[in-house]
């Protein structure tokens, strides 16, 4: 088996952008491994518009957006293997994979980019009691059936969870002739983008019930109905039950990064994101193993996935060229004041180029209004920005000037926090 300097695990938008950026940074020897039968990842089933506004300044569908990157990969003649499942990643970066043509094989790259994306949280993880009949799907599974295969999994639908995929499927199922009765959301706020609530629910008159959950599923063979109830302090309130006859329950209750391979290799995982802990170069706790996209933390816009992954690809190319990781001290990035996590989790201050920008992405744990986002290096404030509304469903991005950080070389930590404006 031919060996490669860089192996990219996953050929979704993250993997493709990493590959393109690594090649443009001068790296010759790159291989993408993808378990599906085409490149593009989850975007292939997202046939609605709204992708690429930031990257290409036009509105593309998911497959079109993926297509742009696929073309670049082909133009740059970056090799890839489809229908190829990576089964194991070892701490020494040995990649074990399998497909029908090559059988089982091992690769020994100098660097790896993790770009495996994420999966949806299943019913079991949500502890919904009741029977286990046909007709309960995650929104993504329904999306695949409808958008890629033309099948309607049901005609009368209740959706639990207001994540973006659930919202988009509420509209899609309606357009395909199903009746979506209600979207119930456990939290007092939606987990999805504001624009999706307007365009996918409001425009079609589909009610969104916040602080509601499914307390029972009826039907032994096929779903016949669900019972919703209002939730207070995490518990359903007796007497608030409402029954909805339906044949389908779609679940859109969150995504879980696919880090089984990363864990197997011993990569340190952030319990908040379920993704690897990375430095500002997107390098994980294993030198030469980088991560980007949904495997790192769940993104709501694919444009940011592409940006992040391009950085990971460039950094992987630099790692291979220079034969290792920088030696600078890793200063931890901490969060407070309602910020749930940050990516990166550390910055190697002394390795920074004074002219560069350090991108910090984060999410908040609740809905906040009229706040100021503040970043401190040690005790010194180095960044501030007003934020009128912050919501868990929307990822925030900060560009910190390396110059500002470098003025505080002794800082013990970098703190990202919110304060009242």
């Amino acid at each position: 088996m031919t060996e490669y300097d860089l192996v990219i695990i996953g050929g979704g938008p993250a993997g493709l952008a990493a590959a393109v950026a690594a090649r443009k940074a001068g790296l010759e020897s790159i291989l993408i491994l993808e378990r599906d039968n085409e490149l593009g990842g989850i975007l292939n089933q997202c046939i609605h518009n709204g992708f690429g506004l930031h990257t290409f300044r036009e509105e593309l569908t998911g497959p079109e957006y993926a297509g742009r990157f696929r073309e670049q990969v082909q133009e740059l003649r970056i090799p890839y293997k489809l229908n190829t499942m990576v089964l194991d990643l070892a701490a020494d970066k040995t990649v074990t994979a399998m497909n029908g043509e090559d059988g089982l094989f091992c690769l020994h790259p100098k660097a790896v980019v993790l770009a495996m994306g994420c999966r949806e949280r299943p019913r079991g993880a949500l502890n919904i009691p009741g029977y286990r009949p046909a007709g309960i799907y995650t929104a993504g599974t329904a999306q695949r059936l409808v958008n890629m295969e033309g099948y309607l999994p049901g005609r009368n639908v209740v959706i639990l969870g207001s994540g973006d995929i659930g919202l988009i499927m509420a509209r899609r199922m309606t357009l395909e002739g199903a009746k979506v009765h209600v979207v119930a959301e456990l939290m007092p706020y939606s987990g999805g983008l504001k624009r999706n609530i307007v365009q996918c629910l409001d425009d079609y008159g589909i009610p969104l019930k916040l602080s509601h959950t499914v307390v029972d599923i009826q039907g032994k063979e096929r779903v016949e109905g669900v019972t919703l109830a209002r939730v207070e302090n995490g518990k359903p309130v007796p007497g608030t039950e409402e029954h909805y006859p339906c044949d389908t329950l779609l679940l859109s209750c969150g995504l879980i990064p696919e880090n089984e391979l990363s864990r197997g290799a011993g990569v340190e995982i952030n319990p908040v994101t379920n993704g690897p802990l990375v430095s500002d170069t997107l390098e994980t706790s294993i030198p030469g193993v980088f991560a980007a996209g949904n495997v790192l933390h769940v993104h709501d816009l694919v444009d940011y996935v592409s940006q992040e992954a391009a950085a990971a690809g460039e950094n992987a190319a630099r790692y291979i060229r220079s034969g290792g990781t920088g030696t600078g001290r890793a200063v931890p990035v901490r969060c407070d004041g309602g910020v749930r996590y940050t990516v990166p989790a550390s910055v190697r201050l002394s390795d920074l180029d004074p002219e560069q920008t350090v991108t910090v992405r984060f999410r908040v744990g609740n809905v906040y209004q009229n706040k100021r986002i503040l970043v401190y290096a040690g005790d010194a404030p180095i960044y501030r920005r007003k934020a009128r509304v912050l919501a868990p469903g929307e990822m925030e991005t900060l560009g910190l000037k390396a110059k500002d950080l470098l003025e505080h070389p002794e800082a013990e930590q970098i703190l990202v926090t919110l304060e009242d404006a």
Partner: protein
Amino acid sequence: MFDVIIIGAGVSGCAIARELSRKKAGILVLERAEDVCCGTSKANSAIVHAGYDAKHGTLMAKLNVQGSRMMPQLARDLDIHYQVNGSLVVMMSPEDRPALVALYENGIQNGVEGLRILEREELRAMEPNISDDAVAALYAPTGAIICPFGLTFALAENAAKNGVQFQFDRQVTGLNRLEDHWEVITPQQTYAAKVVVNAAGVYSDEIHNMAAPDKMTIKPRRGDYFLLDKTTRGFVKNTVFQLPGKLGKGVLVAPTVHGNTIVGPTAIDLEDKDGTATTREGLEDVRAKCGIAVKGLPLNQTITSFAGLRAHEARHEFFIGEAAPGFVDCAAIESPGLSSAPAIGVMVADIVTNILHLEDNPRFDGTRKGILDPKTLSREEYAALIRENPAYGKVICRCETITEGEILDAIRRVPGARSLDGVKRRTRAGMGRCQGGFCSPRVMEILSRELGIPMSQVTKSGGNSRLILGTNKDSL
């Protein structure tokens, strides 16, 4: 005319069928569901109990100990996932010691080997995640775990290999005694058999009452469970029970043969014999109790919850015997029915053999190969397999790494999978952490192709459990 009709294709019916296939006889198994193992045998704790629990002198105790002794050889012959992991009954309060000692003595009387009472230190050393408050425990080194589907499918396939016929979607609704045989009535067809065996699980009272002069009542008693992700592998090594006592009756925490952790069950009496719905209260009960005997159980790793129904009869005993001429009961098989199944099979087969004076089947072959799991092969063997059959290089279920080759094998076996759940129970495709999110559309396509049915007729578990209700815009 069949020599024997067995009603019910759970672990009991399948064990009986396999034992009887050692004899020359025409045997038919009638099952109301669409597949083998759709009743209680699919939803239980999957423990092969060592046999200290069932009261000494009962049939239950005898068959449990026998069954547990037969299991290792059976697992080898039929290629079943089975593992002797030991079991612990943990005592949480010193006042409960008499109960622990009584359990030990009952076990000794039942003939269970190797029983010992472990004190705190030894217990801690054996199971680091045991609660700090645990005082002592009864240790049974012969306690084991098994794949309950695997056991039931293996018994059925081996019976089929030796000539037993299976028919599904056949609910027995009546039994008529004619001069020298029984008429067995189903909505589709009426059958004739010299002997009828009742192995209908929670419905075994109804079948009994169709044939026998006395009446039987079985109450379903539900047990709810959580199943945790394989990330919890090794949380406990032994099956950990809590001794019923001052803190009530706890729930068990056990590894499964596939590396998950199972937590449960509750005990909730019901009226509905198909009432396998979990309830919030039931799941809350498991949640509240599971942290007593062990500490730090990561319940946030739950991938699914489910419930099964015990076939409870007031006397808490197995009913096995000829209840009417040519009508043999294998009724009220509640826990430890799974553990006892091999011995139940032998006992019922002996009764039937005596009634019919059956001769040995010289062609009986008591071995069976399971669905080939390529993960158990060496790298070279695996590579060779993929070269020979590329379907083994195509992963369908990503969480459990199940290939198309394994799924095709599951569908093409006899009796083979005909639904998503049938594939899942045979191969584990869809049993992993995403619970079929990725693979179910792909498995549906394979089923549609292999069975020659449109996607709209592919079901989750037979009957009306269709997965697709239409095509895009068909109603517009």
